[in-house]
């Protein structure tokens, strides 16, 4: 009967070793992030640089509808700084007393201004491709922010035997390897205020950090509460175990 057990274990192991050729699953390499682990917190400087990259590069095409300007408090900006950034963008409000919609400077409570009125408008100027909303990109791709980083640094020349479709670009990490978006991050694409050299890797890392924050703005609260809950549970469960031992001692 041990033999049957052995066969069962062997079957499970054999199955898990079968390579899956069907659909190519690209698992982006894991990067080191300040927000990794039980005590992880976002790197504030990187978040602010990352927001700058989003604002000056990505936001030309990509919306972030789930984000509001007030959420920028989470990357370490003050109320005045947030108000100033919001005021750079016009938000449609209304209707006013005459029944007309009107434009006004955005406030902290407004959503990030979308670059296009709707999906069709976005496709019309992007060669038919739709620049995705980036609010949750660090959650809705396998590998999360690691995927974002891999994609942004994954542009390369296509293999000799690969014929790219018109207007498409080769990317090592995009599913199918043909992506409509041309390499968005160029060396010195932005001028960092803190003097950090704006290399492709640095900018990609910063904007990936910012997008990770945008997808999980509660991450720091989650970690800090989680550590406290865990500590409590370990002590509580330890006490329960001691109680259990004491009560059951009479029986054994």
């Amino acid at each position: 009967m041990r033999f049957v057990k052995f066969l069962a274990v062997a079957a499970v192991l054999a199955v898990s070793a079968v390579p899956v050729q069907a659909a190519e699953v690209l698992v982006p390499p894991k990067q080191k992030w300040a927000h990794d682990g039980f005590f992880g917190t976002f790197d504030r400087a990187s978040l602010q640089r990352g927001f700058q990259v989003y604002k000056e590069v990505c936001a030309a095409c990509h919306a972030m509808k789930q984000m509001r300007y007030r959420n920028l408090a989470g990357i370490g900006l003050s109320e005045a700084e947030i108000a100033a950034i919001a005021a750079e963008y016009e938000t449609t409000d209304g209707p006013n007393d005459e029944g007309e919609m009107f434009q006004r400077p955005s406030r902290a409570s407004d959503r990030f201004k979308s670059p296009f009125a709707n999906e069709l408008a976005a496709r019309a100027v992007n060669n038919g491709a739709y620049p995705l909303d980036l609010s949750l990109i660090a959650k809705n791709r396998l590998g999360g922010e690691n995927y974002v980083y891999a994609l942004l640094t994954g542009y390369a020349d296509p293999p000799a035997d690969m014929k790219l479709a018109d207007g498409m670009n080769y990317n090592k990490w995009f599913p199918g390897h043909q992506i409509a978006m041309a390499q968005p991050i160029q060396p010195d694409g932005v001028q960092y205020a803190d003097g950090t050299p704006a290399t492709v890797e640095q900018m990609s890392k910063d904007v990936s950090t910012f997008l990770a924050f945008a997808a999980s703005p509660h991450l720091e609260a989650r970690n800090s509460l989680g550590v406290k809950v865990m500590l409590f549970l370990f002590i509580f469960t330890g006490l329960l175990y001691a109680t259990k031992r004491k009560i059951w001692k009479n029986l054994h």
Partner: protein
Amino acid sequence: MAKYDYVPSPFRSNPIVKWVDHRLPIFELIDEQLIKYPAPRNLNYMWNFGSLAGICLVIMIVSGIFLAMNYQASTLHAFDSVERIMRDVNYGWLIRYIHMNGASMFFIVVYIHIIRGFYYGSYKAPREILWWLGIVIFLLMMATAFMGYVLPWGQMSFWGATVITNLFSAIPIVGESIVTWLWGGFSVDNPTLNRFFALHYLMPFVIVGVVLLHLWALHVHGSNNPLGIDAKGPQDKVPFHPYYTVKDAFGLGVFLIVFAYFVFFNPYMLGHPDNWIPANPLVTPPHIVPEWYFLPFYAILRAVPDKLGGVLLMFGSIAILFLLPWLDTSRVRSAKFRPAFRAFFWLFIAVCLVLGWAGGQPAEGPALLIGRIATILYFAHFLVFLPLLGWFEKPLPLPSSIAEPVLGGGKMAAAAAMEKA
């Protein structure tokens, strides 16, 4: 005997308690069914999972009610309302992660609870109806979890709902009409989301009702135990409180540590990234998969090239559990005394894991073949192995009482003598 045994509960003599009990014997019920309730003294930690499942149900209902207060069941607003819970509602992320991961925890606990029943033969006479009620709870849980997964209105919500509701179109003649009726239209859309929300809110309370029946049936003959033999007398049992209240509480602590790990430190692991993309009827995900706890059944569904056949086999894989008390022809309950059954039991567990793996792969190539072999073995376990094992297996000798292996023969006899004295 132990010093906690059968101490009369002091609260029963309180005049208010007495006054109430005379009119509605609710305190008597608590005393009889929760405090003095005699349980086999040898239950191991596998018996913790029943009470854990009940606690999971409560956690899901409580967290779900708070989510429902902030959720909007409309295809236009569902996804954004869930994001609002995650971002703007105070501790909304915590409630959502508890509910989201709670579903997975509930299924893990219930699967262990069911597997414990398999191993120790808890479904055998006189506990067949108890077992049936358990399967009914399991089916209700599956329906509830499926509809709950649709509510965030992400890509997997929408496409999962489309795939699963379409299963009913396999029914001959009336299938298409049934699907239209389920959808409330001609595709999964706003009416579908609305009714799923209503039913998702209703079903847990139906589950509570069946759980009460499950407990009622349990308390008629009491728990089975690792030896699978009936209790012979008071020396085989201990009062539920404090022995099992404290043991269950300790188990709950361990469970909450695992639960909290997922909620606080790995909340996305058990989900699918695609469900953070808003539902889009025009874009089909390359690979539609259900939540992990449905994968074995999904593998069985896809193992058959014929749609109706696959649907029948999938429902059959659960329906067959209703017959388990008779398909298992052995009169010995516990696998402890059934060496041959034990081997086939582990084979069955391996088959279920393989099915789970196959369900997560695209239905083609070696994964499909392995899924088919595992499907055959799954049914063979119930239809071939179990009936034959009862005939051919020579079980080990059973101990004469529960207390015997615990206390040792001499001591047991002494204790029994003392009990009589």
